């Protein structure tokens, strides 16, 4: 069954919410594993989000413009002797989509509100 256009899955909402928390804290960039860890600790979940679910959701959010993505500087990764990360951050569109989705849920309000600036 196809899902409705514009409807966000729970994992996508979790990613946007965790990403907005990071944006608010002044450290807006995150990578896949990092956001999975953050979602796990926020939700008190036993297990991390699976690879397939996580990267499919990140890809969909990036394609729809709700996340901005870029590969980090290879030199930064090389200095730390690790593979380079694909970094994401929530865009303005993502923030609005998150707020809209939360307002449409009965009895719930968005947890995060950012200054218009």
């Amino acid at each position, binding site marked *: 069954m196809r899902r409705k256009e514009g409807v966000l899955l729970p994992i996508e909402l979790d990613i946007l919410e965790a990403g907005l928390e990071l944006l608010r804290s002044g450290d807006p960039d995150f*990578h*896949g*594993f*990092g956001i999975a*860890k953050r979602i796990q600790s926020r939700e008190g979940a036993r*297990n*991390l*989000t*699976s*690879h*397939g*679910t*996580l*990267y*499919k959701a990140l*890809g969909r959010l990036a394609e729809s413009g709700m996340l901005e993505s870029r*590969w980090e500087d290879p030199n930064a990764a090389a200095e730390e002797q*690790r*593979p*380079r*990360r*694909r970094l994401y951050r929530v865009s303005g569109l993502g923030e609005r989509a998150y707020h809209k989705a939360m307002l449409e849920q009965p009895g719930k309000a968005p947890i995060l509100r950012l200054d218009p600036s």
Partner: protein
Amino acid sequence: MNLLSVSTSITSRWAGFYTRKLPAAQRDDRLSEIESDLWEHASCGRHDDRSEADIAFEILLRMLKGVPADLLWRRTVALRAAGHRAGTAPAPFSKGATDVLKRVLIAVANAIAVAGGAFLIINALGSGLIDGSEADMVFFAIEALGGLMLIIGVFYARSSPRIGAWLMVGGALLTAVWHFWAWFLFVPPAMLVIVGAIAGLQSRRPAGGAPA
């Protein structure tokens, strides 16, 4: 070689498998993200003083739980690529990981049908089909019939897919119902044989017509 390196190797190989023959950009991006994720996961686990077995198990669990999403993602990317090449709406996706999984399912179902069928026949012969009481002979005759249907169905499927599939489905159902008292032993493999028989029948249908 340790558990952690085995689990990361399996996960990387799976990623390589479901991204094969995809456009290079999407394939490379996905493989690089997975590689990074595996490194971060292991590093984070070591930082938290977790055992390598724990980390390895968690990595494998993440991989396995994400298999359906990986295959759906692959399908989406492949359809888009096919649509771009053709310049029209994406063509039905009929090759790739789904076909391989279907072949594996059919092979496993056939193996269970043959092995299970042989077991049922041998058990029936040794338990009272020949020299048992009348009730025993009836019971084990039906058990042996189920086994025969399974075995004959597997081999008949090559020349006559429809009859072969019906024999396998019939044999599986008969066996499961006849052993209802041990349903937990017989129902799961019977279901697998039925699904495999149907998948085998579909895969042998002539090409064309509506996509599955």
